[in-house]
């Protein structure tokens, strides 16, 4: 039994005895779970060697072997090699954080100037058919479930668009049954009326489905791998289609094959060894960039947060300093990649990190379902669905815009028009 995972287990008294029994068996008995490396029905396998490259690099990453000398060499190099990047992720780099930040700041200025993009996420459904033990939406968690009707989607988007937002990220819980591809496609078509740029963060789908969603108006696909370590992954994602590690890994590549303009990547830092997960995330981007040089790739860096019914969940050994070190290393290694910092982080961290290396931040965020009018305009919504996780930075678009300008940055709401 995985001692480390005990903190995530919460039993709801609303669960029928049979479901509770099944939940416990999934938690305690690995043989009761399906093979996480085996594709389930309907999952498309593509020909790609990127998984193997990333896994091999991660397995051989001995971060304690790097010294201050390696870090200094990495900081003095003009082009950051994979070896240099590993040194920058190592504990030996911690005393060099300020120098890393300076170098990262220069790289960001060279590639992005002083711009910072602002967007907002919109959760349209929180139904989920997976048991991911750390997530507020997991199917055994007793939360208020909701799926917006298309009329409600339209209304929510109208409220958001009124605030001036031009880019939206549409999210769902991972349930094909409740939120099928067609439903998401229809939501995207509505979004096209109100927004200039549309991304999705939904369960991974096949190439033809990404192609369909692209035709509906999606340009960016974000999929978080959570952890790149398949052994740990297996102990966290106990049930459902999300349990299949390799299908999830190839999602971004399938999205690009389906015609998407860009893709987003991340591990959920704190789930496993964060240095190895950071290495794997960046290499995932690195190898995909070599294979698809026209694709716009970006990184996120979420840390674990408390969820409804479990206040104890925390980012463990990933403090703000560690997070900053990872982000500076990302920037130095992948100067061309966008870096998004979510509202899981505090306002002061986000103000500071946008000056160093982050290029995109969310504002006016709610991770609940159907409560934008309440949050934006104070109109009470009685039937809102519960949130995926607790956010930290609650600033509105207007506030964020002003704060970024105060920090000497140029906020950008959109840089792409359809022709």
């Amino acid at each position, binding site marked *: 039994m995985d001692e480390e995972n005990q903190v995530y287990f919460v039993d709801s008294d609303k669960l029928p005895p049979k479901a509770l029994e099944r939940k416990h068996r999934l938690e305690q008995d690995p043989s009761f779970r399906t093979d996480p490396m085996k594709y389930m029905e309907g999952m498309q396998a593509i020909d790609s060697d990127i998984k193997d490259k990333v896994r091999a690099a991660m397995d051989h990453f001995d971060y304690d072997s790097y010294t201050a000398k390696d870090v200094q060499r990495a900081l003095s190099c003009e082009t950051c090699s994979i070896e240099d990047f590993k040194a920058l992720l190592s504990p030996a780099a911690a005393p060099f954080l300020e120098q890393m930040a300076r170098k990262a700041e*220069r790289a960001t*200025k*060279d*590639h*992005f*100037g*002083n*711009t910072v993009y602002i967007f907002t996420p919109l959760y349209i459904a929180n139904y989920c058919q997976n048991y991911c033990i750390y997530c507020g939406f997991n199917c055994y968690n007793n939360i208020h479930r909701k799926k917006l009707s298309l009329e409600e989607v339209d209304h929510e988007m109208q409220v958001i668009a009124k605030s*001036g937002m*031009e880019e939206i990220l549409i999210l769902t819980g991972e349930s094909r049954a409740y939120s099928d591809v067609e439903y998401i496609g229809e939501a995207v078509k509505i979004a096209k009326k109100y927004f*200039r740029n549309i991304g999705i963060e939904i369960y991974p789908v096949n190439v033809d489905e990404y192609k369909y969603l692209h035709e509906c108006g999606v340009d960016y696909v974000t999929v978080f791998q959570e952890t790149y370590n398949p052994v740990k992954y297996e102990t966290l994602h106990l049930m459902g289609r999300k349990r299949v590690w390799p299908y999830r890994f190839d999602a971004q590549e399938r999205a690009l094959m389906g015609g998407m303009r860009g893709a987003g990547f991340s591990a959920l830092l704190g789930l496993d060894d964060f240095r190895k997960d950071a290495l794997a995330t960046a290499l995932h981007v690195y190898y995909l*960039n070599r294979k698809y*040089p*026209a*694709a*716009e*790739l970006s990184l996120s860096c979420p840390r674990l947060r408390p969820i409804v019914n479990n206040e104890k969940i925390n980012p463990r050994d990933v403090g703000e300093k560690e997070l900053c070190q990872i982000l500076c290393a990302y920037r130095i290694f992948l100067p*061309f990649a966008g870096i998004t910092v979510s509202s899981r982080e505090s306002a002061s961290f986000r103000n500071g990190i946008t000056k160093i290396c982050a290029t995109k931040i969310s504002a006016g965020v709610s991770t609940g379902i159907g409560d934008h009018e309440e949050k934006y305009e104070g109109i009470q919504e009685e039937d809102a669905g519960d949130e995926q996780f607790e956010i930290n930075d609650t600033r509105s678009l207007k506030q964020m815009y002003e704060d970024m300008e105060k920090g000497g940055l*140029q*906020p*950008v*709401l*959109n*840089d*792409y*028009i359809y*022709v």
Partner: protein
Amino acid sequence: MKDPFVLGGKEFSSRFILGSGKYNLDLIKAAVQQGGAQIITLALRRANTKESENILDYIPEGVTLLPNTSGARNAEEAVRIARLSRAMGCGDFVKVEIMRDTKYLFPDNDETVKATEILAKEGFVVLPYMNPDLNAARDLQSAGAAAVMPLAAPIGSNKGLATKEMIQILIDEIDLPIIVDAGIGKPSQACEAMEMGAAAIMANTAIATAGNVPEMAEAFKLAIEAGRKAYLTGMGRVLARGGSASDPLTGFLR
């Protein structure tokens, strides 16, 4: 001496073009006031926004807009962006930029030639951004380009005239203004390109990331003017190696 820079039938007294990739109000103000820039490029995909960061609000009167097609990944997209730009009232000037690479933003010469041909036929003043290659530059000239804009170094790199020899060949062989675009990191490099015979310099990052933006804008202005003057005057001789022998080798000839 009057030495106007003629582009698409328009006369300019300044040979400094401001790129707008890293835009902000202070940079544009400085480039126009201290740098004397009369042409400012405009990423069309950024222009048409509703909010207050609209770059069109920042462009002072009397400055010529040079809309670019950045974000285009092929000729077809570039042509569509250019047509949209004209429809929006941004004029006939267009800088063609086509990239299939997000890391170095390297221009795709083949697609650029295709787009240039289509747009020139439609009456656009086409200024193509390109990787300095003589054959491609000749194709651009035949396709109807109004100037050729070779990169000096990867965009935003501030590395200076990394492609100096190639650019010199274009200056020598192509009967169009050669505008050095991308990679110029210091006034001295801008000056050097002008001494070589470049018609104008486009810069952005070098000024945008300088310690003092207005001062750097002025430094670029002066450097570009100095280089132009040196080119027009005719450069003094430069000895390739060693000193000059006092006894001529051919002294024995009668």
